[in-house]
């Protein structure tokens, strides 16, 4: 650090002895320093550089769309399976199937209370020689809030980010009701959605790092 090195081509042209001696080379070759850098040469990083600018509340609000398991981030609005059904048929069924059974995209419905989760000893005993069930919102998603978060940000995949809060609440309600996780007439909003207990809530264990 802090040493001067001659420019490469010149160094290559210099006799080795000159380089080793650190002696004067041709003009512009610089000094082949053997000394330690002077103390205090490289300033320590400042606490702050002062680059960038403060974000405004409005800027944060515009991008801060994530919804967390405790419900933080959920907007006002509400929906039920009944309000979501026509939106699902119009916006989602083409890729996920009329009943959420899957199509070109993932299945969204598939919950067998006796088999949840769709793997492991209990599942294998339940399945016997029968067909496998697929991984779905019903049997593998730990949080209902994630459904709101994901549909709002990424679906429908051909026009993402276009749904209104009431529509997303309705779609979430429809998917959860089809999976038998909430009642058909349950009203989902910022208070009730985080309280939905998902069948796969407790199967996840963080990897040790």
């Amino acid at each position, binding site marked *: 650090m802090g040493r001067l090195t001659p420019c490469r081509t010149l160094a290559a042209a210099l006799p080795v002895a000159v380089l080793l001696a650190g002696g004067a080379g041709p003009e512009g070759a610089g000094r082949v320093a053997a000394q330690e850098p002077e103390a205090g040469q490289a300033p320590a*990083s400042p*606490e*702050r*550089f002062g*680059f*960038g*600018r*403060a*974000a405004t509340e409005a*800027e*944060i609000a515009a*991008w*801060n*769309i*994530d919804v*967390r*398991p405790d419900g933080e981030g959920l907007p006002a609005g509400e929906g039920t399976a009944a309000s979501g059904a026509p939106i699902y048929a119009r916006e989602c069924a083409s890729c996920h199937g009329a009943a959420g059974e899957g199509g070109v995209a993932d299945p969204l419905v598939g919950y067998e209370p006796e088999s949840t*989760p*769709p*793997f*492991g*000893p*209990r*599942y*294998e005993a339940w399945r016997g020689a029968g067909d*496998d069930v697929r*991984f779905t*919102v019903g049997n*593998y*998603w*730990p*949080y209902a*809030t*994630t459904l709101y*978060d*994901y549909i709002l*940000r*990424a679906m429908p*995949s051909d026009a*993402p*980010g276009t749904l209104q809060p009431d529509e997303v609440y309705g779609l979430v309600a429809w998917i959860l009701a089809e999976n038998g996780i909430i009642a058909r007439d349950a009203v989902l909003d910022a208070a009730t959605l985080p309280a939905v207990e998902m069948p*796969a809530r407790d*199967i*996840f*264990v*963080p*990897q040790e*790092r």
Partner: protein
Amino acid sequence: MAKTVTRRDLLAGAAGTIGAAALAPVGGRALAQGRDTTKLPGAPASALGARSPHEPLVRGAVRGAASRTPLQDLHGIITPSDVHFERHHAGIPAVDPADYRLLIHGLVERPTVLTLADLKRFPATSRICFLECSGNYPQEAGPETKPENVCGMTSTTEWTGVSLATLFREVGARPDATWFLAEGQDAAVMTRSVPMEKAWDDALIAYAQNGEALRPAQGYPARLLLPGWEGNSNVKWLRRLELGDRPFMTREETSKYTDPLADGTARQFSFVFDARSIITSPAYPDVVEPGWIEIRGIAWSGRGTIVQVDVSTDGGRTWQAARLQEPVLRQAHTRFRHLWRWDGGPAEIMSRATDDSGYVQPTRAALRATRGRRARRYHLNPITAWRVERGGRVVYREEPPWDA
């Protein structure tokens, strides 16, 4: 029409009459067949270097959402940027660098907006490391499967950017921040939660790869880079970092990228890649001859540095330590080489990596035992074998179906 010969024609070595005359061998039979390149000046300097037309580096198996690195065609540890693997969830967005903003907020003293120019003003840092897709495992693999289709969703390049620790100090990350959310500006608005320890350790916001600005497919103009951690968490086209006190539980860390296990639990936040290796030569579609063969391949580990690669040429009965090619870098592809004298009989060759944590690359059977029948092809790193058939054809040694 009279043909005028320009200086450009000559320089370009255009094959006209002049060229043909110049190419005729002078005296005796030339050792080299074909065009004598010593008798005509070559092409002028080029504005942009191009590959030899004889060496088209092409990626096979490009699907809409993914393309793989042709591992079998590469020699060193660095992956050329244009064949770095790709995996996108909603396509490659076209981001105008003038519009680019990175927002950092949440549990910070000073919520901040940074432009690309701001990012580049901070002290920069570079590192060479691999990046691997979480799902780097073949769906179906018959004998005619190339290395790229076995595990071509790993690549090693040099990344340059600003250390995330520098940015988090700048905005005043609060002590109660334990996780941060990274969000992209693609149409998936990709989100992943990352523990703050990784930010303080070695995470980068990268804006350059192999010395040049990021390519759009790699997250232009800026992406998160978490050395050794699963590809999906290295969010591309990064637009937002939100600091929080627990994971955000996004779809990509619950529904996807988690590992169902045989015991009925599912492993979550399996960020770190365990050690893996593969012989890239000889491999399908090579055909080899009896005699000396240098077995070559790559080994890597998200946990640290590769300390040993063992090679077996008898189907895993006996193993010998291969030579590791310098430089051996942390969390980067490491080249190994092993001389083998093939006697022409049927053989099975394979490699097994060990990293400096003492972890040894497992067999497929060992992985199958812990992951169970319904593993979802994430974070799999089994020993891979090639069969050398009598006659020299090299083919992939098929594995039984995972859920058999």
